[in-house]
């Protein structure tokens, strides 16, 4: 390996071990003038270099003394280079802070803290606060306890992010260089910190009470400070719960702490705040102080302030934590977990809460713990992933082969083994999907498309197994039990879930042009959601059938037994009943899917009518190829059998069949017969209106209050718009995604 490669390698791994040791010395010779003479002998454009060094390599070099590339130039502008330097030059004071100074320091450092949580480098955000470099040297007790708390908070957040492990480089930088000195700093324990913060809070409250009667703003400022200390204390306690989980009462306590935090942040937000100028001029912050620690090509720009107010962000964050508290109850089966994640869980949009959600789920389901004895009863504490998945399948479609209490099953060759293998492979996929739902939206969309391939292959296995088990059940004289579609419906349900979410995420990320919306909604309406509703209905039927058959079989077995055993048999049967009773019914899932189905249908018909009316202006026809767009948007579903991919030809056919059967397509209509076209376009708009009404009616069954309000308003508004369009054709229409990210409201203009 030559020197260049060595250097590049060291650059890549980020280590510098090429400095010579202390004992070694250099013998420098000045060659400034000689070098100029030597190079003057060269020709224009000539490059003299070591072998294997090219112009391309030279281009990637950082140009020194260049204002855009050379960070070293910026380093000269620093007011202070270290904590000690700041103290020596009297820039940092260690005691005698005024109440405004406390407030300014806390507000600005917390805003930096939030910036860090939103994905900026820790060295350029949290640690630009110079006091954090040596909190033990601060003489002022209030400032000291605050600095130590901030360090503890930083560490707590970092641990949560690492444990949740759903962040990407754009969400959070865990590997960004920490200040070296943090290693020397010991952060006191939570108990000590809480006590210190309580003392600080009391000091502030005392000052507030003392000054309350006097005129001036100072009393209010002390009160604001007390609130901030309380906030820090509670936030630290809350985050620590997730890092050392244990007791079952954890979520009750988390919920209580979250309530306190919500109240505190509300008070802080409503109180008067320091102005931006005061915050900017606060002593103790040096944005460039850690620049020398960053890699040379590191982005230098970090915004100084947040887009939203710090405490508004915290308020939002805590509201999301309140949602998380509901999660453990929902994580009993895959179906209810996914339902939760795609409805109430959709509000979790910060990296911290997404990581927290993963931690909470892993508390409920241990993905790594492999079940020894399958199928077994769901243990109360923490079921192994295989038990979780087999419970999910059993609750979804009542797969007989996964039932615990059918001794006849032991006679069926390989039944248990095959079922175990299948469940194990489902565990990998299920854990993967749960993780994907923790990612940010753009990454989630990509990852969902990738995971579809895996689900597709397991779908094949599931169908084959269903067929095999059906034969075996018949052979074992377990008549009445039906295995058709038991495994298959569960995998299909998950797959269709992924497919629909893939398209909805596209809407969420505003990827589709207005001219593409039609085939997206049509595909969802006619293919994915249609299939999904059918799949759930079939699974529900199979579930009820098997439930009844199972009961019948056990009653028969119970009759032939003696009285003593009968009791035990009954107890066991009650166990089955209990299991199936606690499984989430398909009602909510089905209602949600039907709502979405109606909504997509409504938009499909509405946009179709708008197209016929010529109110949708697409791209210029000579430059547009809808076929290409169609395949590009739905590429992830190609070569999938369940449900079969519907190609563009069929889409065209559906459009034209619709046009021929019920409605005359607009482009073949002669202008004078425009009147004739009205009933046909009206048809489409009427169907759209009916679908909006049906969707709105179903909302009550499943939607949370917030979603219900938004979707209900959307349905009502669009219903009215569509009906106006049916009677008055002169109005133009715009799509505005203002009420819901997936569905636009149609606006007349």
């Amino acid at each position, binding site marked *: *390996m*030559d*020197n*260049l*490669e*060595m*250097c*590049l390698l*060291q*650059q890549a791994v980020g280590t*510098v071990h*090429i*400095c010579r040791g*202390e004992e*070694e*010395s*250099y*013998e*420098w*010779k*000045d*060659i*400034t003038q*000689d*070098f*100029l*003479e*030597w*190079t*003057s*002998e*060269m*020709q*224009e*454009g*000539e*490059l*003299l*270099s*070591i072998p294997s*060094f090219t112009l391309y*390599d*030279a281009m*990637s*070099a*950082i*140009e*020194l*003394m260049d204002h855009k590339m050379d960070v*070293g*130039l910026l*380093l*000269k502008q620093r007011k202070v280079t270290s904590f000690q330097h700041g103290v020596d030059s009297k820039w940092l004071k260690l005691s005698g802070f005024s109440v405004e100074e406390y407030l300014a320091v806390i507000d600005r450092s917390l805003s930096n803290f939030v910036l860090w949580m939103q994905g900026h480098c820790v060295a350029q955000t949290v640690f630009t606060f110079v006091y954090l470099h040596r909190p033990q040297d601060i003489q002022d007790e209030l400032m000291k306890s605050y600095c130590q708390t901030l360090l503890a908070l930083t560490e707590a957040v970092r641990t949560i992010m690492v444990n949740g492990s759903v962040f990407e480089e754009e969400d959070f930088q865990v590997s960004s260089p920490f200040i070296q000195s943090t290693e020397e700093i010991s952060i006191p324990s939570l108990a000590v910190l809480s006590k210190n913060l309580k003392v600080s809070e009391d000091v502030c409250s005392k000052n507030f009470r003392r000054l309350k009667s006097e005129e001036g703003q100072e009393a209010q400022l002390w009160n604001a400070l007390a609130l901030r200390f309380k906030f820090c204390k509670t936030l630290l306690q809350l985050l620590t719960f997730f890092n050392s989980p244990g007791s079952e009462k954890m979520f009750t306590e988390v919920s209580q702490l979250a309530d306190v935090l919500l109240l505190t942040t509300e008070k802080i937000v409503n109180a008067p705040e320091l102005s931006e100028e005061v915050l900017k001029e606060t002593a103790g912050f040096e944005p460039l102080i850690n620049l*020398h620690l960053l890699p*040379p*090509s590191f982005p230098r720009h970090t915004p100084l302030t947040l887009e939203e107010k710090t405490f508004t962000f915290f308020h939002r964050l805590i509201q999301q934590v309140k949602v998380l508290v509901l999660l453990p109850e929902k994580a009993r089966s895959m179906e209810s977990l996914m339902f939760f994640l795609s409805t109430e869980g959709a509000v979790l949009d910060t990296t911290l809460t997404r990581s927290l959600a993963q931690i909470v789920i892993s508390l409920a389901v241990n993905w790594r713990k492999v079940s020894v004895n399958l199928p077994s009863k769901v243990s109360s504490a923490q079921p192994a992933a295989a038990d979780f998945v087999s419970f999910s399948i059993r609750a979804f479609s009542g797969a007989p082969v996964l039932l615990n209490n059918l001794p006849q099953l032991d006679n069926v060759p390989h039944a248990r083994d095959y079922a175990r293998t299948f469940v194990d492979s489902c565990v990998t996929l299920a854990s993967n999907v749960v993780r994907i739902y923790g990612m940010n939206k753009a990454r989630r969309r990509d990852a969902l498309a990738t995971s579809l391939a895996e689900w597709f292959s397991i779908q094949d296995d599931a169908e084959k197994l269903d067929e095999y088990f059906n034969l075996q059940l018949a052979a074992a004289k377990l008549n009445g039990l039906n295995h058709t579609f038991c495994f298959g419906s569960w995998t299909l349900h998950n797959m269709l879930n992924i497919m629909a979410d893939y398209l909805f995420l596209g809407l969420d990320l505003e990827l589709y042009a207005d001219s593409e919306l039609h085939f997206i909604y049509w595909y969802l309406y006619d293919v994915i959601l249609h299939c999904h509703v059918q799949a759930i209905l079939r699974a529900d039927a199979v579930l009820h059938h098997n439930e009844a058959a199972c009961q019948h079989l056990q009653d028969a077995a119970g009759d032939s037994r003696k009285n003593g055993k009968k009791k035990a048999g009954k107890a066991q049967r009650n166990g089955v009943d209990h299991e199936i009773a606690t499984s989430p019914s398909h009602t909510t899932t089905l209602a949600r899917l039907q709502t979405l189905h109606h909504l997509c249908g409504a938009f499909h018909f509405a946009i179709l009518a708008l197209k016929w009316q010529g109110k949708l202006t697409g791209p210029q026809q000579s430059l547009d190829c809808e076929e290409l767009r169609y395949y590009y948007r739905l590429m992830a579903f190609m070569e999938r059998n369940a449900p079969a991919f519907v190609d563009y030809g069929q889409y065209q056919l559906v459009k034209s069949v619709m046009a021929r059967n019920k409605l005359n397509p607009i482009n073949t209509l002669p202008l004078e017969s425009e009147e004739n076209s009205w009933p046909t376009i009206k048809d489409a708009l009427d169907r759209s209106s009916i679908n909006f009404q049906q969707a709105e009616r179903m909302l009550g069954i499943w939607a949370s209050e917030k979603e219900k309000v938004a979707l209900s308003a959307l349905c009502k508004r669009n219903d009215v718009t569509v009906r106006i369009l049916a009677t008055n054709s002169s109005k133009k229409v715009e799509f505005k995604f203002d009420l819901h990210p997936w569905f636009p409201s149609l606006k007349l203009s």
Partner: protein
Amino acid sequence: MESPPEVDAEVDETRRIDHKQKEPASTSPFNFSAATSPGRTEIQKLFNKEFKLILKDDRVVIGTFFCTDKDANIVLGGAREYENDAEFTSRKKEPRFVGLVMVNIKNLKALFVDTKEVQTPTY
């Protein structure tokens, strides 16, 4: 009427021909491999040696010499930056690692080469 573009085209044509005639067909303008001179030999001797650059703002950069051109743009690999010469000699503070850098001699106060014989490890 006169048509200036035509004249221009004609001039261009002649220029192109001239250019072709002046240039020997055998050598491309970017083929310098054959060129040798005392200065070039001296530069080649410096390759892979440690350079010390003192920049206009007193920063000191140490790195391995890789490449140069007619304008004396110097490319160093594995470069470390010290705030000033005193900091470099005292070695009390860790340098800032900059990696592959390029600097023009115009931006330098002085340029040094390490003449001490060092056994270079072979990889």
